[in-house]
């Protein structure tokens, strides 16, 4: 059954994708350098370094920041293979969108190294093009690495709790946090429904029938989401929720936090000073 196995494969892979992103929390609970930083400071640190990478025009400088990322990932007990795999998944997506056009002389005028001739259009790969291509590649690689470091060493909800510091209301944070948490629940529910149908019907006989079942399930899914929302709201009311949610405060910053803040500002300053 083609359709059947297609649906099955997408359901199962979606499920394992979420499983994996949940499993990533494992790194957040490990002992390591970035894990002991307070989330707001860590976010600021990463933000300063992102700006530094963005403004710098020196390949050496960006390479240095990238090496710092590798060092930090080592000090935060993230396996190098996992770290590289995670960054390399995202790099091409960012990279292709942003960098590829600048490779060709259409965008970057200069001396040609290789010349492509497609129909009567001439495409030259230039020195200047290659330079901006590689600096952009490094920028993207380093930026993605910085974000991966932040995300893998911090619990998702801790990241969310950073938002109120920048003026985002608590209720928004709670809702986003819950959506994240309930995605997991929904995926499980969806998979169970799917398996339930499969075990009862045995197979899904035609594309049409398959589509119908998926459609009916989505309707069912919305209905259940609505009920779930209602129930969760009641569960909050039952435990004293009244108009405004109160979330626990994050821990106070330590010495290491201040140190990282200073290092972040220093690196940003260096990048700007270089020009």
């Amino acid at each position, binding site marked *: 059954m083609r359709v059947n196995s297609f649906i099955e494969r997408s359901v199962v892979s979606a499920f394992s994708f979420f499983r994996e992103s949940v499993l990533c929390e494992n790194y957040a*609970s490990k002992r390591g350098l970035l894990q002991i930083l307070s989330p707001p400071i860590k976010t600021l640190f990463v933000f300063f370094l992102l700006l530094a990478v963005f403004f710098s025009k020196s390949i050496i400088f960006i390479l240095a920041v990238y090496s710092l990322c590798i060092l930090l990932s080592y000090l935060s007990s993230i396996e190098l293979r996992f770290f590289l795999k995670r960054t390399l998944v995202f790099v091409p997506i960012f990279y292709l969108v942003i960098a590829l056009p600048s490779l060709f002389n259409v965008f970057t005028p200069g001396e040609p190294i290789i010349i492509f001739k497609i129909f009567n259009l001439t495409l030259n790969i230039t020195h200047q093009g290659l330079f901006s291509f590689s600096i952009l590649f490094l920028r993207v690689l380093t930026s993605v690495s910085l974000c991966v470091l932040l995300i893998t060493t911090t619990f998702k909800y801790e990241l969310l709790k950073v938002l109120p510091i920048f003026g985002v209301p608590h209720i928004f944070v709670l809702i986003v946090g819950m959506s994240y948490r309930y995605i997991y629940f929904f995926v499980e529910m969806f998979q169970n429904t799917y398996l339930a149908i499969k075990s009862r019907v045995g197979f899904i006989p035609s594309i049409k029938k398959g589509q119908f079942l998926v459609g009916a399930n989505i309707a069912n899914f919305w209905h259940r989401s609505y009920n779930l929302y209602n129930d969760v709201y009641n569960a*909050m*009311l039952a435990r*004293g929720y009244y108009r405004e949610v109160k979330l626990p405060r994050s821990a106070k910053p330590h010495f290491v936090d201040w140190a990282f803040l200073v290092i972040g500002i220093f690196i940003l300053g260096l990048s700007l000073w270089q020009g």
Partner: protein
Amino acid sequence: MARLIFELKGVYFSYHGKIPALCDINLNIEEGSKIVIMGANGTGKTTLLMLLDALIFPQKGYIRALDREFRENLLNDWEFVRFFRSKVGLLFQNPDVQLFSPTVKDELIFSLLNLGFTQKEIEKRLSKIVQLFRIKELLDRAPYQLSVGEKKKVAIASVLIMEPEVLLLDEPTAGLDPQTTRDIIDIILKENSLGKTIITATHHLEIIEELADKVYVLGKENKIVRSDYPKEVLYDEEFLLKYNLAHIHYHHHKDLVHTHLPLHND
């Protein structure tokens, strides 16, 4: 006679105004008693507990609780919310619904934070409940990553941390293994021995005798069809069968063995 905690007269509730979920409910529940609400699926047990916890309100009849009459606008009254929510705790049937916080620790202290307890008091109660439930190693985990039994424990702990006088428990032992069931019943009984009122909704016959001084049975018409002592109900096989609370034993079918041909569909 002990103080009345709940007093229900002619209570009626229906979800979308069509099919009634509860009809003409009359109940008096005394302080410190153990009550079990029995009934098959869909007979209105959950709805009744939601009514008792002032999450939904009767469309006919009235409910008095802790010397106050329920009215819908009570939910806008902070004094009432603080008073009532700290006195009455509800364990939801589905722990996935009840556990909405990012970590077990946040889950446990949610009510205390929202009811305005001081940081010091919160720390004190947290360490006490963690010790009682032996869940220290779960504190930093996400509730959805726990096993069913752990979820249930955390859900009960998050209710008990408020130290409520009345516990409303919606199928507290559904889906649990015998040992976890035992643990949870012991916790409930201990709370009762400390003077707390316990109201449990369940269709598990095994736990009723321990958890009930008195049993109320909801029937298919979503009405109370019987209120009695647990022993009387449990030994009334005919009654239990009629209201879908027990099943006939399988060994009567010994002579009816037949085989199915396996079906292949590829």
